[in-house]
């Protein structure tokens, strides 16, 4: 029998009971839409996590001065005074897996501009910090290396600081006071949002040259952190080891003793976030697949009813020469058409729902083509799998009995 004829017969049989066909399809529609929407949501979450991690900087490592315990009392990180500017220089010089590094220290300070004041973190660092963190400027630029050498009172501010301190005023070139010292604003950073790690507001920061911070604000010559970018993501693991061994060496830490610093690799966090969101996606997709299977059972149920209802038709077809194969094919195609149409509608709805959800959550919209292809394939497979038994049942009917069926 020609495939066109079979399809025509299938379409007509389905059109005969429009309401029933639509309700049967609904199971597949919901199943397919759910799979696509859930996978898209999962991948959106994954992409969101990736973005947050990428926002911290590419292939970034964070070296912090370590904790010490003195007389049973643990101090927080940054309590040691052993991490110094020369360590940063050595890391750049001696670790091949390191591309760039920037030294830093942080202090909390009250900042005043006009009648407004704001308590924020003031960080001392060097200009390459912004490159390492891939942090762009919405206005102005970074202070220069020369500013550092001359211990200049210049500052770069984050978006939150700009908003709270300057409001409608253009901050560029304005002078604000940090701990009563005047600082000229030379740059305003673009917003970076909350960090994936701690969840603190990264835009609530002020950056000044490290020398200025050390000499004029804190009076402490040591560093609290060094930010490092590795040559590649793979290289970040190597860099981690190189930095650790270099610093142990420089700090003369004997084997067996604790480090007085720590090196945190952000690739680790990226991996963890990746893993978590992938698990999340798989979980969502498998829950959604269950509805697809339920939809398939719906198809089987209706096809069984249809076979019983059309027993006489089957008998007629057999009497005029339809083979078992012809009859089986007819009902199988009907089930497949049913599930494929349902799958098609489900894909459309799934894409729509994906957009809706990801947009509501403010995530990047990622409609997975893999999920669409898989859903289409799967709905076809559902049709074959759940259509097979009813079709077999139809094909096995005895033509004499079938013709007599009232």
């Amino acid at each position: 029998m020609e495939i066109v004829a079979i399809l025509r017969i299938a379409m007509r049989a389905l059109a005969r009971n429009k309401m029933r066909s639509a309700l049967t399809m609904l199971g597949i529609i919901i199943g397919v839409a759910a799979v696509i929407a859930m996978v898209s949501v999962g991948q959106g979450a994954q992409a969101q996590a990736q973005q947050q991690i990428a926002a911290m900087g590419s292939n970034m490592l964070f070296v912090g001065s370590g904790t010490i315990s003195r007389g049973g009392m643990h101090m927080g990180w940054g309590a040691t005074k052993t991490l110094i500017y020369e360590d940063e220089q050595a890391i750049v010089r001696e670790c091949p897996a390191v591309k760039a590094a920037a030294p830093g220290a942080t202090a909390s300070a009250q900042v005043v501009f006009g009648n407004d004041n704001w308590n924020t973190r003031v960080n001392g660092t060097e200009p390459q910090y912004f490159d390492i963190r891939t942090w762009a400027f919405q206005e102005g630029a970074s202070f220069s290396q020369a500013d550092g050498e001359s211990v200049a009172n210049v500052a770069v501010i984050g978006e939150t600081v700009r908003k709270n301190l300057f409001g409608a005023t253009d901050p560029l070139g304005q002078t604000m006071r940090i701990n009563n010292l005047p600082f000229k604003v030379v740059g305003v950073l673009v917003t970076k949002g909350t960090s994936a790690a701690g969840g603190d507001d990264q835009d609530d920061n002020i950056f000044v040259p490290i020398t200025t911070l050390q000499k004029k604000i804190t009076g402490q010559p040591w560093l609290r952190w060094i930010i490092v970018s590795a040559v590649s993501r793979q290289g970040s693991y190597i860099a981690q080891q190189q930095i650790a061994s270099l610093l142990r060496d420089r700090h003369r830490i004997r084997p067996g003793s604790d480090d007085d610093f720590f090196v945190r690799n952000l690739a680790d966090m990226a991996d963890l976030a990746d893993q978590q969101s992938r698990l999340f996606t798989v979980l969502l997709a498998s829950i959604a697949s269950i509805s697809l299977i339920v939809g398939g059972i719906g198809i089987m149920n209706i096809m069984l009813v249809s076979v019983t209802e059309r027993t006489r038709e089957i008998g007629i077809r057999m009497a005029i020469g339809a083979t078992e194969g012809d009859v089986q094919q007819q009902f199988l195609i009907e089930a497949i058409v049913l599930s494929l149409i349902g799958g098609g509608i489900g894909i459309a709805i799934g894409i729509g729902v994906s957009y809706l959800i990801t947009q509501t959550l403010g995530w990047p919209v990622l409609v997975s083509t893999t999920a669409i292809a898989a859903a289409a394939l799967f709905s076809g497979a559902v049709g074959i799998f759940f259509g097979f038994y009813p079709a077999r049942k139809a094909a096995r009917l005895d033509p004499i009995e079938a013709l007599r069926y009232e």
Partner: protein
Amino acid sequence: MATISQPDTHPAQAPATNAIIRVADAHKYYELGETRVHALRGVNVEIHRGEFVAIMGASGSGKSTFMNIVGCLDTLSSGEYFLEEIDVQRFSKKDLASIRNKKIGFVFQGFNLLSRTTALENVELPTLYAHITHAEGQRRAHEALELVGLGERKLHYPSQLSGGQQQRVAIARALVNRPAILLADEPTGNLDSRTSVEIMDVFQNLNLGGLTVVLVTHEPDISQFATRTIEFRDGRIRHDTPVKNRPLASEVLKNLPTLED
């Protein structure tokens, strides 16, 4: 009423000596739970090309079983059945389906048309299983409908046709693959007497055109339109007699009042 003027619509005449149907020592049992029903108890019969045979008998006489066997819908428990000298007893289900498709045309008591399917599409149905092109199938379907006098109602649905017209559609469907035999199982059972005679006129015309017709009926006046009657009783052939003074259905129709008026 159409007259038969296209002998090429039917299989070429084979030598009359060849039996188109030859059944020898045919037995058929059914297992119905504990009991065994012996439906055919040694049937021997030959039907030749161009015959018009009426099968008679009460219900339970074995005539329906015989028709199912002849129609290749069922197989014998023992004995032989040759259709056009081919031993179809040995055929697989698939091959039997092909024989039903190409060699046998079925006409049923209840018409058995597919509802919500036009007359033309109903007639076309056997061609879909015959591995011929769609165009050829359509051409044959048109031809068969013209032959039974329903050329004007090709696109009507069964529900829009009278019983007699529906049965003509069924006859056209039975003819569309140019079968060797037309098997009709109580084709007039659901029809009034005038329409019954009209249908018998169609059969007589087809038979005159060379088609072998086997008809099951329990109405003696219907069986008189055949050339030969075979009466079944208790699974055996009781009488096998040629019909004398066979009336022509077209003549009978002239003397019947038209019901429509």
